[in-house]
């Protein structure tokens, strides 16, 4: 029987099914080792960038924090009030601490899926392990930051998140880099396990640079009555991004919702999608995608609903807004039902800013540019993410500052 390592070695040159093929050898694996320190002791420019992806140095606002720079874990902490309710540690520490963790290793994502999953296994740098203990309701969000401070670095992380039965939590993960970093490759494997009656909301915010490549790979397993909400937000230019997370609703009445808001600028090549597999009775799924493309950005917005059980329902909604003639949005919704009784629906629409809407708002006293900004902001309405109000406000603020500044 092949080990994960064996399978990874065999797949190390295997291109991804989607997105531009990258030569992994062009990126550097060398990075300085960062000493552990308090978040407040980090340089101001790092903290500012972290804040731009929702990661705050004010630990009182978060139940727990994990902060990694390049390949080094520099900070992890759990607020006193949440001790014995959650576990947060580096993935390497967790793997050595818990022998059972291997049962969760490469179970939702195939290690030999492509060269990016392969490199994450062969050259694992770090990553986090977060576990919400049984029946614990964590009222404050947990946060993790995966930061790159070295130009042209290849950072490979593997994260595992387990929401034990009856638990509830919100996790925000911000991936970003130092303002001086232009190039690089981030490979992030994230495996989610949402157990019986658990509810997990995961929000990932990316803020990369114009020559940077990103290849997240995620998978989730949702058990009986479990609820998994996955939010993805990316609103800064980058060279290429390709991700196609998949959620398997294995338990009865398991529910999953993927929301994504992607704002493509400059020469960004973005290929993002979500896939839901409904495998038991009462399973429900929803994919809500918002894509905005301007300048010369190319966006592929994919969605895939697969039903393998009769009593299942899922809906896919993909909306695109094209702000420049040189940009492109390609919506690719796919529905596959393998049994009778499954209800799968989709709606996809791509358009420009509606002149009728602009004029309506101008008739309310907004200038043309204010009206257009309001419509774009509305298109990226973060209330679709279903987040707590303060987190929602934070993300809306980021979108307002970054995306609308370009209008």
């Amino acid at each position, binding site marked *: 029987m092949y080990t994960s390592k064996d399978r990874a070695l065999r797949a190390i040159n295997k291109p991804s099914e989607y997105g531009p093929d990258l030569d992994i050898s062009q990126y550097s694996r060398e990075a300085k080792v960062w000493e552990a320190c308090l978040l407040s002791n980090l340089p101001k420019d790092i903290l500012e960038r972290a804040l731009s992806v929702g990661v705050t140095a004010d630990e009182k606002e978060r139940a727990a924090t994990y902060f990694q720079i390049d390949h080094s874990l520099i900070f992890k902490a759990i607020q006193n009030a949440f001790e014995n309710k959650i576990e947060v540690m580096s993935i390497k520490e967790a793997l050595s601490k818990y022998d059972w963790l291997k049962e969760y290793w490469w179970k939702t994502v195939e290690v030999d899926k492509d060269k990016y999953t392969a490199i994450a296994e062969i050259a694992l740098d770090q990553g986090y392990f977060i576990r919400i203990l049984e029946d614990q309701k964590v009222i404050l969000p947990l946060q993790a930051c995966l930061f790159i401070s070295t130009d042209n670095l290849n950072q490979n992380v593997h994260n595992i998140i387990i929401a034990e039965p009856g638990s509830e939590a919100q996790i925000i993960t911000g991936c970003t880099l130092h303002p001086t970093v232009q190039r690089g490759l981030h490979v992030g494997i994230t495996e989610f396990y949402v157990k019986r009656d658990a509810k997990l909301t995961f929000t990932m915010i990316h803020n990369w640079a114009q020559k940077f490549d990103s290849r997240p790979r995620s998978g989730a397993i949702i058990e009986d009555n479990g609820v998994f909400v996955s939010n993805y937000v990316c609103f800064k230019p980058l060279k290429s991004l390709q991700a196609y997370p998949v959620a398997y609703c294995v338990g009865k009445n398991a529910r999953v919702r993927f929301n994504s808001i992607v704002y493509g600028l400059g020469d960004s090549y973005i290929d993002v999608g979500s896939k839901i597999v409904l495998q038991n009775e009462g399973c429900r799924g929803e994919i809500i995608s918002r894509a905005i493309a301007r300048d010369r950005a190319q966006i592929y917005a994919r969605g895939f609903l697969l039903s393998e059980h009769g009593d299942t329902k899922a809906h896919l909604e993909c909306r695109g807004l094209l702000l420049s003639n040189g940009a492109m949005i390609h919506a690719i919704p796919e529905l596959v039902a393998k049994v009778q009784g499954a209800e799968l629906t989709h709606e996809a629409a791509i358009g420009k800013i509606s002149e009728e809407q602009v004029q*309506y708002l*101008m008739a*309310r*006293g907004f200038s043309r540019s204010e009206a257009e900004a309001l*419509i774009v902001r509305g298109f990226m309405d973060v209330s679709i993410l279903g987040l707590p109000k303060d987190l929602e406000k934070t993300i809306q603020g980021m979108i307002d500052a970054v995306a609308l500044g370009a209008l």
Partner: protein
Amino acid sequence: MTDNILEIHDLSVEVSGKRVLNGVNLRIPEGEVHVLFGPNGSGKSSLVMSLLGFPAYKIVSGRIFFKGKDITDLPTDERVKMGISVAFQHPPAIRGVKLGQILRHLTPDEKRIIDLLNKVKFPQSFLERDVNLGFSGGEIKKSEILQVLAHGGDFIILDEPDSGVDVENLRILGTVINETLRNRSALIITHLGVILQYIDAKLAHVLMNGTIVCSGLPTKILGQILNEGYAWCEKCIQARIERCEL
């Protein structure tokens, strides 16, 4: 000119090369409410869009004066800032743009917004609703009146405020509109004139084929239209043509 809040001089307008208004002349003195009748497709809504300066409505000839100033070439938002408030017949739904955002732009006074919501019997939750998205016919009319009230312009245009509204909502809207129009100038566009039960209009005009063909007492004109339909207007036009009055 200064006694009239609105003056339209010989206004002809085209949309995509098709003439929709043809030599419209209209004067509305300060403090008066006028009514505009007309069959479907006669150009009533086109007149509203032209008054607002929507780019698709190209002015071929004529001028529009508001408060004595020529606004013919002003952009929409500047006309609105001068005091023109409009309730549209078919406003677009805008995903993600909340009714509350628009109201707060029109007035920064939060207490006033709450008072206005109560006035039109809207729950506060409507502030967080995407404007016009999933609104019923009655809710759209209330939302439009609410925005007009929040703006508080000196000249109010209501485009078919009574169409598609049930009896209960019509009573609420009629009462609010009546209150709003006191000491204000307005142009009320109506197809069937139901809203006239609630407002005290000074003069009515009939628009046919993009031209105002007659003006007179609102009750008298409405009575004729209700009795004989707009065919009466056509007969009237014919008679006036024969008398060389047109």
